[in-house]
């Protein structure tokens, strides 16, 4: 039996999940201290399930707290920044293109020193150990408690970053160190940005992980704790404490994965209908298709990817105008229960149309002032919006069902074009927490390699093994690990066919 928790800005949700699905659930407001909300949500979900605490194998938590801290510029530490790169990269120093208010929190303590690697693994320059030590002493003088270290091409070789970390910790024993090689992905600036943000979160991450641990202690749960990361897999709590930035963007991923699990399928289109917008995405093998764009967090370009989600201006509170020919994108939003006609308000909304049309039962139908032709026109407008946009997001001709989830799911009672079926899974209001609970663990490796007929098999095997080992370290049972992604991108304009190779393995926790 597993427990999934989602700590959002507004609500903390918990579900108890057995081998055959949801056994119990609970939705409570998020508390300022986080921990008491988690305790209360888990307690109520266990009670709802009629379960025994001793049977809990594992607790999985998804949280947006780290993302929110960056967006709100709260709980961020000043960061000492070291880039191992000279004589390269000085044309664009660290923090270039960052918003000023965030730089004020991080402060400007950036040092470029000699070091870094070429794409083929040679050194650009030897590591300037004295330069690193001098930077560390300046950090100490300025009372800096967190450091971010980035070297050129560290996803190929992280040794210089690790050596620099030793030197810094020698000079400043208690400083929290973030290394860019642990965050993977080519692209020096986005990777450096993520490393700096990670360092800025190092105090908060300690508090949050402590709060989660305390909740489990208070509940007397002995089960291991995992936390969701951005790609929909789980991390050990210890690793989150060191690399909180890896939890960014886990929310949308959990919600979509939870939805397909609840519908008991692997491949589907998903539409999550809220008060103002509908988010449409697509899942293959239980994972959302990723956007090619990097995530911008609080105005900073990071090296994380998000699920490819299209937001359309159709929600429960969407305004219905022009005799029903125009629905949305304006919405009464969270004021639905005071403004919508079915709740006694004066505004005609999408929800009112569903109530007056007789396919939803919310509020008081007799209060809605919409004639037959308006209802029909509005229904046609909404159908058209969904038809067009679901088709847009569907990237293959194969038959896929559409899962309709979220508070506005009642709006849809019609067949949607280009999908085989429209499904409304049970418990979809806690899809986020379910998504956290069903997750696997993963390992990822990225390299630049030169492949030819002679070494191809050998090189691929080696990298697959490394990804597999990482997944096992993350907690997977060896027999469950499989390689789910092999991405090969040629490095163009260079003779010799060098290739960027990324391999990802996932596996199950031993439950």
């Amino acid at each position, binding site marked *: 039996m597993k427990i999934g928790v989602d700590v959002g800005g507004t609500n903390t949700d918990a579900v108890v999940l057995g081998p055959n699905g949801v056994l119990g659930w609970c939705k409570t407001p998020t508390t300022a201290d986080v921990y008491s909300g988690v305790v209360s949500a888990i307690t109520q979900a266990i009670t709802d399930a009629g379960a025994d605490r001793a049977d809990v194998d594992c607790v999985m938590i998804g949280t947006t707290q780290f993302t929110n801290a960056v967006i709100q510029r709260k709980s961020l530490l000043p960061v000492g920044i070291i880039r191992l790169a000279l004589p390269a990269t000085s044309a*664009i120093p660290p923090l270039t293109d960052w918003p000023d208010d965030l730089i004020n929190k991080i402060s400007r303590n950036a040092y470029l020193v000699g070091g870094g690697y070429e794409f083929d693994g040679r050194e650009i320059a030897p590591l300037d150990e004295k330069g690193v030590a001098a930077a560390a002493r300046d950090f100490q003088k300025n009372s800096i408690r967190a450091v971010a270290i980035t070297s050129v091409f560290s996803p190929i070789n992280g040794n210089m970053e690790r050596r620099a970390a030793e030197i810094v910790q020698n000079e400043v024993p208690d400083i929290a160190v973030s290394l860019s090689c642990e965050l993977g992905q080519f692209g020096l600036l986005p990777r450096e940005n993520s490393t700096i943000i990670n360092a800025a979160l190092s105090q908060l991450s300690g508090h949050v992980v402590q709060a989660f641990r305390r909740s489990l202690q208070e509940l007397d749960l002995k089960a291991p704790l995992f936390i969701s990361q951005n790609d929909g897999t789980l991390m050990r709590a210890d690793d989150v404490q060191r690399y909180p930035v890896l939890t960014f963007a886990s929310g949308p991923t959990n919600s979509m994965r939870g939805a397909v699990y609840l519908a008991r399928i692997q491949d589907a289109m998903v539409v999550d209908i809220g008060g103002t917008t509908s988010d449409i995405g697509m899942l293959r093998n239980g994972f959302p298709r990723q956007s090619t764009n990097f995530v911008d967090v609080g105005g900073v370009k990071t090296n994380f990817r998000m699920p490819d989600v299209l937001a359309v201006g159709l929600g429960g509170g969407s305004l219905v105008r022009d005799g029903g020919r125009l629905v949305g994108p304006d919405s009464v939003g969270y004021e639905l229960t005071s403004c919508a006609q079915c709740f006694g308000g004066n505004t005609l909304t999408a929800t009112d149309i569903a109530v007056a049309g007789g396919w939803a039962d919310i509020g008081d139908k007799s209060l809605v002032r919409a004639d037959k032709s308006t209802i029909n026109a509005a229904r046609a407008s909404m159908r058209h919006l969904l038809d067009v946009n679901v088709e*847009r997001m569907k990237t293959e001709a194969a038959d896929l069902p559409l899962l309709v989830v979220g508070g506005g799911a009642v709006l849809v009672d019609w067949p949607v074009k280009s999908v085989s079926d429209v499904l409304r899974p049970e418990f979809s209001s806690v899809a986020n927490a379910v998504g956290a609970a069903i997750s696997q663990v993963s390992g990822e490796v990225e390299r630049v390699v030169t492949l030819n007929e002679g070494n191809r098999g050998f090189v691929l095997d080696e990298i697959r093994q490394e990804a597999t080992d990482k997944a096992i370290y993350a907690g997977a049972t060896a027999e469950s690990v499989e390689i789910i992604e092999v991405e090969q991108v040629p*490095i163009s304009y260079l003779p010799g066919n060098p290739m960027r190779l990324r391999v990802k393995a996932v596996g199950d926790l031993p439950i």
Partner: protein
Amino acid sequence: MELKFEDVDNLCTGAAFLGAGGGGDPYIGGLMVKQELAAGRKIEIIDPDELDDGKLIIPTAMMGAPTVLLEKIPSGEEPIRALRVVEKELGRQADATMPTEVGGINSTIPLFVGARLGIPVVDADGQGRAFPELQMETFAIEGISGCPLGISDEKGDTSLVMTNDNHRMEWIARGITIRFGGTAYFANYPMDGAEVKRSAVKHTLTLARRIGEIICNSRSRKQDPFDELCTFLATTSYAVARVIFDGKVTDVDRRTSEGFTLGSVSIDNPNGRCIIEFQNENLIARVDKEVLAIVPDIISILDAETAVPITNETLRYGQRVKVLAVGVPPIMRSEAALRQFGPQAFGMTELYQKLK
């Protein structure tokens, strides 16, 4: 004309458009230029028609792998050292610099050099788009030698390439680039003002800026950027531009051979399938047997909603796209030009046919 901070993103978007799927993402170059402007340095763009015949112009650029550039950002000294190598060989200082290639990252390097050295940047280039090799220049077609070529890396290494054959210049410089770590910065095709006027594709930096402006502004004004782009390009020396296909990417096939990313992309709509073949840059677009557009005309794949250019490295299954083809100016489709960068220069059997 002075280039403003807020022009830089527009210029980069337009340069990506003119890159025809290749040319490298101008992201790093754009940041370098913005960094210079933020530090208070100025960039003066000058009209090639107003150049004195006797002025010395030395173009500057980068070569190698854009993927490597994303990790190994330059120090900024590289293109300047390369320029100094050419100046030393000629015994004379440059009065201005200029792009060799307006498509992709190379639109930005001369702007950076201009800012650092306080010399103007000529509003022109030698490709009018992006091409993969150094001999593929209108300068070469007009009989101008690419050498002396100066080339440099971040470590301060420099090299001077002297050969009277522009193909050999490309071959040698490419080899040096590998030893420099996959990226290098160079200065070549030194010219006087009269030669620039005779051999360059003119007003292409301001063209890139305007294209970017249309794409970026239409997003906020909620207007159709495609109509606006075609209408604008019709008023330039490129003269013809139209959407040749509209659909969804259904297949992307990529492989490498000797530094080129070769491949094709299939785009489907209910009426048929368009196949675009590329060699770093897009070369030919066909529906069935019919050729819709062919190199040197520009074939750019754009996001169907926003008109933001999609490079061949970021093409993927499922994207909604429109294919915009743009005819190139007459100087780029003369017989001599077609020998240098027409279909046969890329090993194709189809003959060039002007975009209608």
